[in-house]
């Protein structure tokens, strides 16, 4: 016999993500899910961001990688609380992994929790991890066609960070095209042009972060 179901395939992940989100909201912790392809500069961006804000905010990082603890070690050098998740092959983090990682963390009074997802533009966009916002990072050397090829992430991200802009003079990357394409399905997305290496453009990004922390403190 035919049994109608109509249930979400990823409902288990979403239920756990909702639980996490409620916990973070109660704590007024801003949670950001950082997503990009491998090598776009997530860790470098985080190191610079953490170094700039660590005297103002209490922050934590959950670091997702398929293998190795190299990135977590780089983050830990900033003095910010870091937990490494090794997915051992899985190409994205899910809410259960984040739940397990938070068990090892001191979440009390945390202003910002950064989740650095596994480098991948497809799968991480599909799995909620209890975040307030997804932050997409696209680096100039990857090419300006990526938002067309991976529309789900770019349609859901609250912020797009165009990283490695110090390389713009050397590469054929059409910034205006990327902005236009991304806004087709996401007109309110904030786009910041940065270089995590030189610090160029960081003021706007840090201001955006500070404002979101303030809003979260006010329970918005």
């Amino acid at each position, binding site marked *: 016999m035919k049994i109608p179901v109509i249930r979400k*395939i990823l409902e288990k992940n979403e239920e756990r993500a909702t639980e996490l989100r409620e916990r973070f909201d109660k704590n007024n912790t801003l949670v950001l899910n950082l997503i990009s392809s491998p090598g776009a500069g997530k860790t470098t961006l985080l190191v610079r961001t953490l170094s700039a804000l660590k005297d103002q905010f209490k922050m934590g990082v959950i670091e997702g990688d398929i293998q190795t603890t190299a990135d977590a070690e780089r983050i830990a050098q900033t003095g910010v609380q870091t937990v490494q998740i090794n997915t051992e092959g899985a190409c994205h983090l899910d809410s259960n992994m984040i739940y397990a990682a938070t068990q090892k963390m001191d979440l009390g009074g945390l202003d910002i929790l950064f989740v650095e997802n596994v480098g991948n533009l497809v799968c991480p966009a599909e799995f909620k991890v209890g975040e307030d916002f997804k932050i997409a990072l696209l680096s100039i050397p990857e090419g300006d066609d990526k938002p067309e090829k*991976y529309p789900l992430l770019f349609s859901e991200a609250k912020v797009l960070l165009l990283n490695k802009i110090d390389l713009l003079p050397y590469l054929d990357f059409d910034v205006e095209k990327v902005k236009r394409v991304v806004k087709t399905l996401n007109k309110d997305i904030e786009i910041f042009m940065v270089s995590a290496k030189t610090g160029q453009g960081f003021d706007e990004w840090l201001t955006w972060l500070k404002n979101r922390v303030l809003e979260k403190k006010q329970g918005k």
Partner: protein
Amino acid sequence: MHEMSIAQGIMDVVKQEMTKNKMKVLLKVKIRAGKLNAIVPEALQVCFDMLLQDTPWPGAMLEIETIPIKLKCPKCSQEFLPEDQEYMGSIIQAPCPNCGTDIGHEIVSGKELLIEYIEAE
């Protein structure tokens, strides 16, 4: 390769539904997958078949219906299906066929990931 996690998700829901409806043999699962989810049907099939081996019904079938991307224009509210559904680039750069607006389209469908029904006895 999110197909394995998705196959696992299907299996979780199917097992609950089998128990809830007191069914013994699963014959078929029908799912709806939005085009934006970028699921590779062949890969999902392989993962599903692999997970079935650990169940009492290894011969069950999986039917995947791909849901095309449908957009809604923010200016004139026209709903439209971008013509070329195969190439993502032309989907998300599609201007509204009615008024030509090309910014701020709302995604009406193409993001769903649902189990529609199961057949069992």
